[in-house]
């Protein structure tokens, strides 16, 4: 199972990779920005995309739209991971069509379980 993860924070990318690979046994491909992710999207075929929201240049929502605009990504589940924890923010994000919103800080011990459950749905 390949998880695409996009976040501009290297520490969080590392933490996420640790969690998903070490704890969850997933394959992880990571990008430091939305631009990179969109550019490289065609060369990957992830089962799930985890998108940070607050990113420079291309923020999470715009990246979401651009990925969704790609034929190959039309049906791939995309989840946001954000520190914008307010209920309103989450609702807005869900309204875009995200499968879920994972609040930061997240528990790296339980993140693989969440991802697994998302993949099963």
């Amino acid at each position, binding site marked *: 199972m390949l998880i695409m993860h996009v976040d501009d924070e290297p520490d969080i990318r590392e933490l996420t990779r640790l969690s998903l690979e070490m704890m969850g046994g997933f394959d992880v491909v990571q990008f430091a920005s939305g631009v990179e992710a969109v550019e490289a999207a065609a060369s990957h075929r992830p089962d799930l995309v985890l998108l940070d929201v607050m990113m420079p240049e291309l923020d999470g929502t715009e990246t979401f739209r651009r990925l969704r605009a790609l034929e190959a990504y039309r049906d791939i589940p995309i989840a946001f991971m954000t*520190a914008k924890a*307010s209920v309103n923010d989450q609702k807005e994000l869900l309204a875009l069509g995200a499968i879920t919103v994972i609040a930061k800080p997240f528990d790296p011990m339980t993140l693989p379980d969440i991802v697994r459950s998302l993949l099963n749905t």
Partner: protein
Amino acid sequence: MRKVLQRLGLGVWTALTYLGVVTGIAGVAVLEERAMRADLVASQTSDAQAYLDMLSEDLLSVLRRKFDTGRAIAGAVSLVPDINQDQFSRLGAVVLRGEPSVLNISTIRDLRIAHVHPIEENARILGTDLSTSPVRVASVARVRDTGIGELQGPIELFLGPMGFIVRQPVFVGSEVADPSDARGEFWGMVSLVFSADAVFREVGLFEPDKPYEVAIRLADRDATPIFGDPAVFGATEIQSDISIANAAWDIAVIPMDGWITRPPGLTTRRGTYLLIAIVAVLLTRYFLLLRAERARVSQQLRGAIDVLPGGFVVHDAEDRMVLCNDTYKEFYAKSAPAMVPGNTFEQMLRYGLEHGQFPEAVGREEDWLSERLSAHRSDESFVEQQLVDGRWLRIIERATPDGGRVGVRLDITEIKENALKLERFNAELQSALAARDEAEARFAELSDMSTEWFWEQDADLRFSYLSAGMERATGVDPSAILGRRRDEFARPDAGSTGPAGTTQILEALEAREEFHDLIYRALDVRQDEMWVRTSGRPFYNAEGTFMGYRGTAADVTPLYSALRDAQKADRAKTQFLNVISHELRTPLTVLLGFNRFLTRPHVLPAFKRLANAADVEGREDLSVALDGAMSEVENFARKMDDAGQQLLTLISDMLDLARIESNTVRIQAERVDVAPIVASVVEQFAPMATEKALALVHDVGEVAVYADAARFRQILNNLVNNAIKFTEAGQISIRSERVDDTVVVHVEDTGIGVAEDMQPLIFDRFHQAETGNTRNTSGVGLGLTIIREFVQLMDGEIWVESTLGQGSRFSFSLPAWSDDLGHEDLDDDIAAADRA
């Protein structure tokens, strides 16, 4: 009979009255006629008697004269017994002068006629022997025997006609002429013959116009007629008799035309009586009609008096009651027994006083009585009087021309009450006017002083009035606004930065609705920016016609600028907090995330390798040391995790609070089933409770609330979290109950509790900020403040009951879900909250 009367339109008594009148007049007429007849008879009888008396007298007089003449001749002869014929003739000529009725005189001696005068006509009877006439013989014999003269006749005279003869005896030798004394020697006798007719003529019996028919007869046995029709005697009562010497005559008279039996003018008189009867009947009829009319008028008057709306009473000159109507008795019900015709007014008043008729007189009866009587006796009086039942009467009394009194009682209770009402109303009006004046003065003063102002728009919505405060507050000349419409200087703002006051005001004016505290930007009235807060309401005249708007306004430019600045600052703060939150969360994510691995060091590759190496090399000591190291790392990591989580909560709370303050909290109310969320929260906190050996129990029924599920969970989380945090032993229980239209959720613990004086303060954010340092409430954070806001945003309440050292019970209520009830109101409220 009765039917006949009915047909004539007469009553029995009326008919009897007419009959009585007619009978009475007829009776009088009959009596008078009878009296007239009696008078007539008496008058005729009297006249006839007078005539008879006169006639008798005359006849007697004539006959006496004849006797006297005979006696004179007899006297003369007795003086000259040897008188010869010549002497006798001379004597006769002297004596018979003036006696034309005497036919002759003669002397008789020895039944022979011895002398006669006048001789010429009677010479042939000289010597005639009377013995051939037995009547004469008898007469001569009686005269000779009695010596008394005698009248003989009527007798057929020798000379032919019927006549009377007076014989007078002649005695000689006696000095005395009266033969009864000493008659002397009978010489013979003297006869004086006179004609009956001549005598009757002399007394007028042959007068052609004599009024009476006369009959005369001898009063002898044969009733020999002498004169007239003997039948007269049978036809009259008027009779008399005369007698001279031996002769007695009966005389009867009868009016020539018989007795008049019919009084003169009888027909006229009868006619008069008939006329009188008719007049009397008419008068009776008039009288009866008059009486009937009077009775009718009296009845009418009585009826009218009885139906008068007021009481009516009449007293006579002696002040005795004559009559009164029922209303009068009704007014004075307690005095009614004394209201008897004949009782004086004073008696009635005294009776009333004794029976409590006059409440106003109580305690001063005599004075009252004297005042009342004085008014009553004046020529005209007006008195007001209250009755015992509370009613008021106006008494009007007047003297009548006959000295009596007429009194009228009018019920003026209503007038009196109206007057009292009017008085009260006047007082209220005066007081209201005073209040109004005061209010106006207050208004004027406040209006003068105020920097707010009052405005008025006319029906055309043009400004017609602005109080002085407007110019003072804004520096704008009122003439710049008066006469203009609001939309001329209050146009909807371009852009979205200002409040929507202008639009709302214009819409409200259009819809004739009230508006309150709307802020708009006034354009073109002042050089610099001007913001006005205003409220207004339409006003109408008495007929309900829209007359315009009135309202207040204030220049809020400085305030509004400040407000806008504050809002900007607020938004900036929220923005800042959002950013800070994000910026804090990112390192916290890293910190907590990696720390989570430290809480489970055995999963870390390095530790795994170390443990494997120790195992492989059989280094028990190393394994022990490794375990100790991992345990320490784990222990410290947990502490860091706790602190990190606390920091995270604080950050969340700060964000929530910032949103609440900037009114950007979004509530999406829907049906929320309480039990699943409670179960989920319990499950979430079970490890935490277990760790502290606390029982976490719940007992909620199948209840649902109308709320935002996320906020509901947040509230419950906060309360359960606090409860576990501040409870060292015992249990935490979650219960729900239905109270009216709400569901109340209780979170109860057996922890340290909250001091009573603190209970009202623990939901206060400032209190938390102030006391947070001095109390061991770390971890409480701003949670209670926030959840109170959420509860209130969802139309609920939150409160705490607690005893220090024994435990606390936090409770919050939310509207119960009902399929029957719409929840638009809450939606609206929440929507409004969202907008705000």
